[in-house]
């Protein structure tokens, strides 16, 4: 259990919902998936501001899973109470939607912008990786970009 996580507040810099509802919410498993530490939220705000200021003034980041209200295991896998969703248990990590071939491409960061965001993140001591889920290709996330997203440790 992680104490002190707070809900990510609404902001014009990012979206917590898309046309289908809360991004990342899975009915019956978790629907309240946008909690972080206060510090992590501040850092997330800076990252989103940079995106608007330097990359695409008209776009916002679409925020997928962060942490649950008490942190802990994020029960999204096919088997209950077993990861995956690494590092989402402490309120310091979040997924940001990136261009993919699945049905969740609304508001995704285009491929051409990925390296820029990652360089900014490196400059600012954030760890960013590109993740895919349930990819059948165990060697790459480029070739099989199913549910592709940035995983950011804030």
């Amino acid at each position: 259990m992680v104490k002190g996580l707070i809900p990510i507040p609404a902001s014009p810099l990012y979206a917590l919902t898309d046309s289908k509802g809360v991004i990342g919410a899975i009915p019956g498993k978790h629907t309240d998936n946008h909690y972080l530490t206060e510090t992590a939220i501040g850092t997330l705000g800076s990252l989103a501001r940079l995106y608007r200021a330097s990359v695409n003034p008209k776009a916002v980041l679409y925020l997928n899973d962060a942490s649950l209200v008490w942190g802990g295991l994020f029960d999204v896998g096919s088997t209950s109470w077993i990861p995956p969703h690494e590092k989402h248990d402490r309120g310091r990590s979040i997924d940001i939607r990136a261009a993919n071939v699945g049905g969740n491409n609304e508001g995704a960061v285009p491929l051409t912008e990925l390296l820029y965001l990652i360089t900014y993140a490196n400059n600012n001591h954030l760890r960013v990786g590109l993740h895919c889920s349930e990819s059948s290709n165990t060697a790459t996330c480029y070739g099989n970009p199913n549910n592709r997203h940035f995983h950011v440790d804030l």
Partner: protein
Amino acid sequence: MRTFIKLYAVILAIALSLNVQAYPGESIVRDPATGNYAITYRGDPNNTELSRTTFVPATKIDPSIRSRFRLGERGIITYRYTVSNGATAKQAIIGVVLEQIVNPILAEIPEPSVLKNATLAEFDAYTAAEAAALASPIGWDGHINRRIPNVNWLPKFANFANGGIHAGGTVSGFGFNSLDLPGMGPSRMAGVGDILNFPDDGPLDDSVIVAELDRLRDNDFIARNAAVPMIAVPSPFDAAVLLDRIRTQVDTWSGKQLLDPAYAVQLDRYMVAAANAYRGNQPKIGKEHIESVRKLLEHEHRFLDHDDEDNDDTAEHKAATRLAIDRLAARVLDFDLRYVLKRIEKEHEHDHDEGDRRKER
């Protein structure tokens, strides 16, 4: 074999004590030919099949950074930096970061926060102020991060794909203004690595390779020393307090291999004496001690008061295998001490003027 067993036992003991797992087959292996790291890990707790990815470090660069600092009107110090990439570099430099800039630079405003429901207009105003506070070369954007804290630059998005400092290239014009005196801080430069991508959620949290991978990622840069604003000038001005702060900064230099410890003792003796003299209201003696420090510095490096240059050592000095103090560190200390002397002179003139005015009344 015995060594291997011992090594395995140690790894296992560490793994158990840290509540982490050494999953069979996991590894991070550096390819000496490319410098890249092949990462093999277990990405699915329900499946023993291993996933693979490649970490391309952003350190295939050969960076150097030159620092310039100049005292201007009203105590404003202009800091400027020139970054070069060696001819043999395999990547262009796309990240330039100056660390440990604790106090706000001039014209910086507080960053609005999503936690305080900041509006788009507030964010945009901050972005404009940030751009105005920083000097950036053409084609680069600068950013201020108060959380780390650091100031950093990267090529503008529009020319990001071909931008950066290519092998053999030099770019000038990074900088800002500050009221703080320079100290020796780390700068870090990074090249065009690759996007670290996982076909899943990456290694399992309890895997031993997570810490190793995080360490690789956290150190994915080349560090160089730079002169950055680190020493706050007390207000109202107090020469003794400022000298104490300069000493505190110089104290860190031996650990950074910038200063010979025996030489450091000599410098410190004079600086303590100078601070004590100013505390005891003996400015003349204080000045003499400061000049003694400057003479010691001059003995190691020439033209330290040429604040725009940093390569004017004699051939003899350049050939020396080991100097008592790094040239940039010597320039920084000389600059800081000259600042103290200038301020004292100014305060003295101010006191004189006040006295004359009182007499006239």
